[in-house]
């Protein structure tokens, strides 16, 4: 009887230890899943900002390099939109850049495309042949993932 009693207590102790161990393991797994979820969200935000930064800068550099004219006043401070013009074998081209909601839209020869989204505080400035474009790219729902871009491009350098 004494043996049975002590063995029951030992089994109960084992059960409590086992449940505690499982609870700790469960808490660890939940914590890891939480960190994984946050990391995935942050990584997606970084990729989104990087793509937006990369495509917008590529289009701006391309157009400003070939441009021979612009409506940005030399030494006239910042402005929110810009127009670039040039003539090539295909004729005369006019390209406008403006922020539409949070999209940096390029409208070239009446064809519009978004060169990057989640963009804010867009400004254009010109000093001689140097055009400086400033803007911020912020990931949606992740204010801790953002890029503040100050891009210099030489007008007509292409």
């Amino acid at each position: 009887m004494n043996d049975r009693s002590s063995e029951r207590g030992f089994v109960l102790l084992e059960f409590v230890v086992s449940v505690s161990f499982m609870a700790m393991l469960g808490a660890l797994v939940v914590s890891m899943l939480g960190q994984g979820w946050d990391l995935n969200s942050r990584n997606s935000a970084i990729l989104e900002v990087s793509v937006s930064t990369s495509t917008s800068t590529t289009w701006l550099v391309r157009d400003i390099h070939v441009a021979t004219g612009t409506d940005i006043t030399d030494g006239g401070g910042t402005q929110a939109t810009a127009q670039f013009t040039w003539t090539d074998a295909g004729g005369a081209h006019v390209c406008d850049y403006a922020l539409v909601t949070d999209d940096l839209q390029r409208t070239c020869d009446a064809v519009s495309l978004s060169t990057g989204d989640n963009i804010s505080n867009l400004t254009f400035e010109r000093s001689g042949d140097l055009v400086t474009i400033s803007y911020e790219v912020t990931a949606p729902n992740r204010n801790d993932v953002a890029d503040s871009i100050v891009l210099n491009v030489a007008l007509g350098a292409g």
Partner: protein
Amino acid sequence: MPLLRPKNHSRSHAKTAHSQRGFVMIEMMLAVAIVGTAMLATVSAFSTASKTARFVQETTTAEWLATSQIELIRVATFQLTPGTYTTVPAPTGYSVANVTSGVAGGDSNIQIVTVTVSRGADDVYETSAMKVNR
């Protein structure tokens, strides 16, 4: 260590109970090993994903910084080799440097400008361009 043990303690079941205790122990060790391996794999995957995202972010920032620097040098007055040009302001943690070098043949009106973007102590991007005195 057994997690749960049958209540039957008769002699006829002693051998069975003994072998079952051993089996439960192995099961638990296997379970701990599997869970441990899975956790190690998860932590490793987190680390790799984090490094990849950091690399993408650094490269993107470094690319536009280097482009911005090269464009600034394009419109700048030609500096004699060896020399440097005014650097562009960089975001916190980044720095941009440039250095000029001569070309083969010794034409002093042509130079190679190498732009290096660093983050902390690490160089994350490097690009070169020609500059001509004209």
